[in-house]
Structures are given as C-alpha cells and as structure tokens.
C-alpha cells in the first residue's frame, strides 16, 4: 500500500507550481525596484535591478566556474586511500 502512495512531488504539476511561484516571486520582487524608493547605504544599491542581477549572475558564474574547477581537482573517491605514487 505504501508503495502506491503518491507523494507531493510525484505529481509533476506540483513541481511546475513551485517553479512558477518562484518566477512570479522574482518578477514581483524585481518590479518593486520601480515602485519603492530605496535608501541604500551604497550608491550602487540605488541602481534599478542591482540586487536581482547580482544574485543571478553571481550564482551562474559560481556554478560555471565550479564546473571548470572540477576538471582540475576532481579525483576518484578512493584517491587518498590508494597506495603508491604513480596510480593517478
């Protein structure tokens, strides 16, 4: 019986709902920049779209750079357990 049970994200509609809510939240939050007058501590904070853009670009850059880094630093799981200097 428990094998048959449907969980929240077994239904792809719920997953889509989460993604759509996030997109909606992003649109609203970015839109608030146009409506609300921000009194930031730093001049750049006043630039419209500064935080949304920074957050998005930072994360994409982070992931792309980390992917490149993986080519350099990734080793097999038992890398440190293996004996002998020449078995890379």
């Amino acid at each position, binding site marked *: 019986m428990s094998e048959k049970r449907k969980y929240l994200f077994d239904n792809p509609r719920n997953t889509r709902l989460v993604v759509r809510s996030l997109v909606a939240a992003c649109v609203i939050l*970015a839109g608030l920049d146009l409506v609300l007058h921000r009194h930031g501590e730093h001049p750049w904070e006043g630039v419209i779209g500064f935080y949304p853009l920074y957050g998005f670009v930072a994360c994409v850059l*982070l992931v792309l750079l980390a992917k490149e880094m993986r080519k350099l630093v990734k080793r097999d799981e038992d890398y440190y357990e293996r004996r002998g200097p020449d078995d890379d």
Partner: protein
Amino acid sequence: MNGGGPMMTEIAPALPLFLGAVLSGFTRGWLRALVMLGAPLLGALGIYQMEPGTLVQAELFGLALTPVRVDSLSILFGYLFHLATFIGVIYALHVRDRIQDVAALAYAGSAVGAVFAGDLLTLFIYWELMALTSVFLILARRTERAFGASMRYLVMQVGSGVLLLAGTILYASNDGSLAFNHVGLNAPGGWLIFLAFGIKSAFPFLHNWLTDAYPEATPSGTVFLSAVTTKVAIYALVRGYAGTEILIYIGVLMACFPIFYAVIENDLRRVLAYSMINQVGFMVVGVGIGTELALNGAVAHAFNDVIFKGLLMMSMGAVLHVTGEMRGSELGGLYKKMPKTAVLCMVGAASISAFPLFNGFVSKSMIMSAAIIENHDWVWLALLFASAGVFHHAGIKIPFFAFFAHDSRFVAEAREAPTNMLIAMTIAALLCVGIGTFPLFLYDLLPYDTGYWPYDMSHVLAQMQLLAFSALAFTWLKLAHIYPPELKSVNLDAEWLYRRVAPDAVKKIMTQLTSVKELASKHTLAALGMAQRGIARHHGEHGLLARTWPTGSMVLWVAVLLGLSLVLYYF
C-alpha cells in the same frame, strides 16, 4: 567577587561541564541522561549568576595568572557553548557510547574555560584540552578513514597550541604580563599567536583539518565539533586582533573560495564544512573591520552560526543515522519518509541563507553594513557574492539533494529520525526563527550598544531580491541540465600537499635511498668478503700465519733474528 561570596561556578565556570564529563563516564540509563542534560543547565545558571568585571587571580611559579575573567564577551560565548551542548546532548541521547559522552562534555567544558581565561597560559591549557577531547568525537566513528582524519586533525590542533605557547612565551618575555587582551601583530610573538588562532579559525591553506575531520566524525560528534572550535577561535580573534586589517582580506578569501568547493562536493556534511569556512569568513571580516558594529556583527554571527549550522549538521546527521549514507549522489527523495527532518533542515537552510525573519539575516547584515560604512566597496561586493553563493550551496543544494532530487534506494526503507533528534532540531529551529524575528534578545547580549536595527524596507527587499534570483539561477541551471551532477569523487584542496605530494615525495626519497643503501651494502659486503678471504688465507687453518711450526725451526729463526740484530748493532 560579588556580594554573595564566590560561587563555585564563578571560580571555575567550566566546572559543571567537567563534572558532568566525569559522571557520564560512570552512569547509565536515566541517570546518565540526567547528568548529561543537567551539566549544561547548571553551567548556564552559573553564568547567569556571574558579575561582569569579576577577576579570579592566582599565582603559579611567580606568574600572575587570571584563570577567570568575566565580561560581556565571555558571558555571551559562555551561554552559547552551554546552549549548544544542551541541544547536542538531546540530539545524542539515543547514542550508547561512553567515549562520546565524556568527550563531548569535556570538550564543551574546555571551550567554556577558554572563553573565560583571562591570561594566555590558561587559554593555552584549555586550547590544547579542546584538541585532546574533541579528537575522540572523530575517533568514535571507528572507521579507518575516521582514524586517519583524526590523526591529521590532532596534529593541526596540537600544532596550533604549540604556536600559541611559543607566542605566549615571547609575548610575556616582553613586559612580563600574560594578560590576554588586545595582542596585535606588532607585539612580540604576535604573529605566532595570530597563526595559532588562524589554524583554529580555518584560515585559507590551514583549513583542511575542518573539511577533512568534521565529515568523518560521528553524527552527533560533528554537531558538537561544528559548534565549538571555530567559535572559540573567533572569540580569541575578537579579543586579541580586533581591527587587524589583514583579517579583512583573509576573511573575504574564506567567504569566497569554499563555496566553489561546496558546489562540487559530494559528501553533504563536507559541503556543510566548506560552508562553515564561508560563514567564519564573514566573522573574520567583521573582526578585521574592527568597528563596534562590525565586532557586534562578528560575535552575533558566531552565535547564530552555532545554531543554524548545528541545525543543518543535525539534519544531515539524522539522514546519516537513518540511511548510513552521506553522499549526495546516492541520496534523494527522503522527504517522503523524513518530512519533519526535511522541514527542519529547510529552516536551517533559510537561516544560513539569511532570509529575513531567520537569524542569519540579523547578524550577517551588520557585517555587510559595517563594510559599506567603512568604504570597503570591494569587500562588500565579495561578501554579497558569498551571500548569494551560500544560499546556492547550503540553502538549496543540501535540502535538495538529500530530500528531493531523484528517489534514492533508501526511500523504501527509510524512517523518520528518532524523537530525541527531532526535539533537538526543533529547539534549534525555534531559536533560528525566534532570534530572527526578535533580534533584541541577541542584541542585548552583544558587547557594544550600536542601536543597529536590520529590518527596514531597503534591507529586506535587497536580501529577498538577491535570494530569489539566486534560486532562479539554480532552477534554470538545473532545468537546463547545466548544473553539475553529484558525482562520487573527492576534490583536491590544499590538503593534497600533505596527504599526497609530501608522502609521495618521502616515499620516492626512501626508494632512492634504498637503492643507494643497496649499492653501498653490496660494495661493503664485497669489501668485507675480500677482507675475510684475506684473513682466512693468512690466518685460516691452512694459512701461513696459522701453521704449527716445529720448535726447532722456531729456535733457528730466533737465532737468525738475533744474529741479524747483532750485525746491525755492530754497525
């Protein structure tokens, strides 16, 4: 001393925890639970009764020591470690392992002793005690990997203590004072003490003991470990090196580089270990800026980090306890069987990501504001990058790969975490939301009164925008299949130098030395053989010098010799 005469806890604030450690070694069942839970409560009560400004002084071999110094900074950290111990003890109540019980309480006691130490020698003693007690929380995992990691951990931690002692000796030889106040880099021994604190704060290149050992400790052991060592180090930096400019740059580096590793790391507790360096980086920046707001931010963030990182470590510990697995590549879908753990984990994730109304927000924003006020534009931008990054790897990645993503093979058999684990996580989660919503409870404990208030429209909107678009980036990268999958792997870090390069170099030298040795021994043996044969020829049983001669020929030869000497004498 206060009016009521000295309390035992005022002379030794760490006493309840140390007594608890001893007693937990002898008790079992409900009595053990009582001792373990009572020790941190009693200790916290002791701190509540302390009078700021109290000094307990002693003399040892003519050295003026201050074993206990009470001020707002030590009180705050004192409360913090008792709180963390209390939560950790509840989390570990189901564990039947005396070594871990004793080690956890003694470790927490050492930390309390360290933050109340008024002189460098007392600090050194507790500093080393922390190393020696905490290592058992790693050893108690009882795996070969844990053993290796614990030995590397011990070398680094004890090494930090040795540096502290050397620095202390130099420092004291200057003006004879051991008092632990502002030290600064220019003081004699200042750099040594700085480095000692730096090792325990996991400065870049000195950080791998943390990412190496914490993920190898027991599920509950990591909870204690993550609460204590780095926070004592932050306390020590605040006390000794506030406003030291180089700390700003060290802190920025710490906040930024580990998030790259966190994105590609597979072991989810190691992801949290990298994330811990990132959070400690924020604190180190705060100490480096050194203004009242920045120091308050550093201390408050240390307090909050203990709670939300503890909560995240506890939720991952629960997953490890239930499934025996911690690799993101193998986990997933557990929200179906561990929904409570999943929700509690997400509270921790929201807190570390500094969502408004969660505790990370009310402390991290102090450090960010302090950076802007002091015109550290690039530092501020870097911290903003790190803030977006922390949401990415700790806020989203941890819950996503453990509880959602694809259904793993563990989903069928998994069950909810034990009740005591859930209670401990719930307390931590309530504290995350409580402090985040009513920050004055925490702000009142801070060393300075800055009148800072995090909740205004600009701040909240800015943070929400940053986080929402970070989440959007994750979602897009994931849906577009750009996001790097979790892979069974290890990633090379600075530890590569001492775990691979150095041992390999030593091995290589030893191999070459072996061939030199072989060559040498071959020639020596040949020479010895020749000598032996020579001796055998002359002295052996048929050798010229070993023959038995008839007495007559002997007499003849003697006569010849005597005659010869006579002839010589004559001339």
